């Protein structure tokens, strides 16, 4: 079923909307949740929450891309759930590793005036990524948006593990340099 037809089901308050969403994007959303949450039950609940969120927000919203909309909702919910799980000493996984890697993009000092809101920072990252080759863009997004394990990305991108790690390292360094050139110090 096309996205617009599924969205129409939400607008018509048809319960089939969630079933159709689950059929079309269930695996995709579970994959996003899996990279962030280690417990199967947590992932299931997270994706179920995403469906619920969609049900409550469409209408009035009418997302252009249902896949993107649900993906973002799922990622946010999973990250929130991970924070809660971390306090119970479970979960973490790829998020902890990704955070460790992202230290490459952060310089040693930090001043209040250099702080900026995350949305603006997201726009700057977008600008940077748009200037990169396709393979670099995809690898970076798979790692730091989807939070996929580096091993999985290497297979997906048909690269060796060492090349993937090296590409990510170079990209983080270049991102930092790019942000610094614009006077953005993280």
């Amino acid at each position, binding site marked *: 079923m096309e996205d617009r037809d599924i969205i129409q089901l939400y607008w018509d308050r048809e319960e089939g909307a969630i079933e159709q969403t689950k059929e079309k994007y269930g695996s995709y959303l579970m994959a996003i949740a899996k990279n962030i949450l280690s417990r*199967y039950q947590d992932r299931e609940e997270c994706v179920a929450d995403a469906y619920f969120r969609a049900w409550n927000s469409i209408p009035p919203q009418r997302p252009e891309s249902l896949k993107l909309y649900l993906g973002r909702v799922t990622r946010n919910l999973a990250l929130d759930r991970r924070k809660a799980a971390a306090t119970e000493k479970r979960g973490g996984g790829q998020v902890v590793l990704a955070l460790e890697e992202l230290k490459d993009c952060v310089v040693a000092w930090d001043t209040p005036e250099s702080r900026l809101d995350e949305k603006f920072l997201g726009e700057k990252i977008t600008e940077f990524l748009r200037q990169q080759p396709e393979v670099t863009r995809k690898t970076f997004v798979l790692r730091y*948006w989807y939070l996929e394990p580096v091993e999985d990305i290497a297979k*997906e991108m048909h690269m060796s593990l060492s090349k993937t790690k090296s*590409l990510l390292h170079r990209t983080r360094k270049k991102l930092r340099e790019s942000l610094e050139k614009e006077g953005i110090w993280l």
Partner: protein
Amino acid sequence: MKEERLLSAMEHIAGELILEAKEAPMKEKKIKSRPLRLVLIAAVLVALFAVTVTAAYVIKEWDSVFANRFQPTEAIQEQMNGNLDQPEASATRDGVTLSVRQTICDGNELYAVVELLLPEDFDMDYLKVEPNGMSDETLSLFATKDETTGNWYTGPATERAEWFQGTLSEEELETLTEEKIEEDSFHYYIEVGMGGGSFLPKYIDAQTRTISYLLMMEYDEETGGPVTIWFENIYYSSTEEGLLSGPIYMSWTPEYNTEPLDLTLEQDGENVGAVTLTPMSIQVDVPELLDVLENPPEEGTEAYDELVDRICHEQNYFEELVTVTIHFADGSQRDIVYGFGGGYDDETGGLSLSLDADFGIEFLDLSTVTAVTVGAITVEVN
């Protein structure tokens, strides 16, 4: 924490980047049913042939791109010698020459080194070649004009026209159809988006004005036909005008010399699946997944429903569920942990398993394989 803020900022990157990352083409999960081959007779024939032609036998030199990627030992070079080919394929348009330098094929996987020779008036400074002569980043200066055609495509020629619809003029489509498509053949078309998919830029040589690419793709032995490399055009970054007045493309049919190792999975004397090994890949086909599970749940039970649910919704569940291992004569073994497919069939209500994985930069010596395990079944090589 600052890194955490950066991770949160990723939430706000453009949606197109998020979707693009997951639009990488997946390899087709095709399982071929080949008749069992008489490996022993083949081995004897190969031995006889080797004795006969010893004087003329020459180990081919590996192209530098292949040599750097695979770093083949002498043993590997000898083993894969019959799979290395230097096809005569090239095309020239507006001073740009596209050619294929060397291929490695085993009937299931294909690697090719493709070269693009730029015109004499092309300013190589645009490519900003670094001292070591290789840099993936500099190639971003090339881009396909239309982002919608920036992906690569492999598939039947008969479906190609639909793929290109809207990106080429009717006249160009018609010309290509007349020249290249035979209804009964299966062509592979690779449309190139610079730096993307499995078509990777490897080297720029400013002196010779060449760019070398490494192509990696699945190639089907039985339906295989010519491979066509297609460049819609070549552009400097951020410019509208291309170097070419129209598309440039070339075709060739890969040549190789490999006997795949075909094995049958049996349970209580019944054929329940097939395994095919080539030097560069493994394929597994199990029509009924339950046949290879240690403790298969009965249909209609809660355990079965849970199995179906996890297979349908958990991305890497097959890898947890079924172990696929190749055993070697020296006692070592290799677990295959990716390339799984199959799933729940809505129509039949059955569960199936398939696997199609390549070995990356390694080559398997089929003569050293003693057995393959798929879940609860181990099949030995006679």
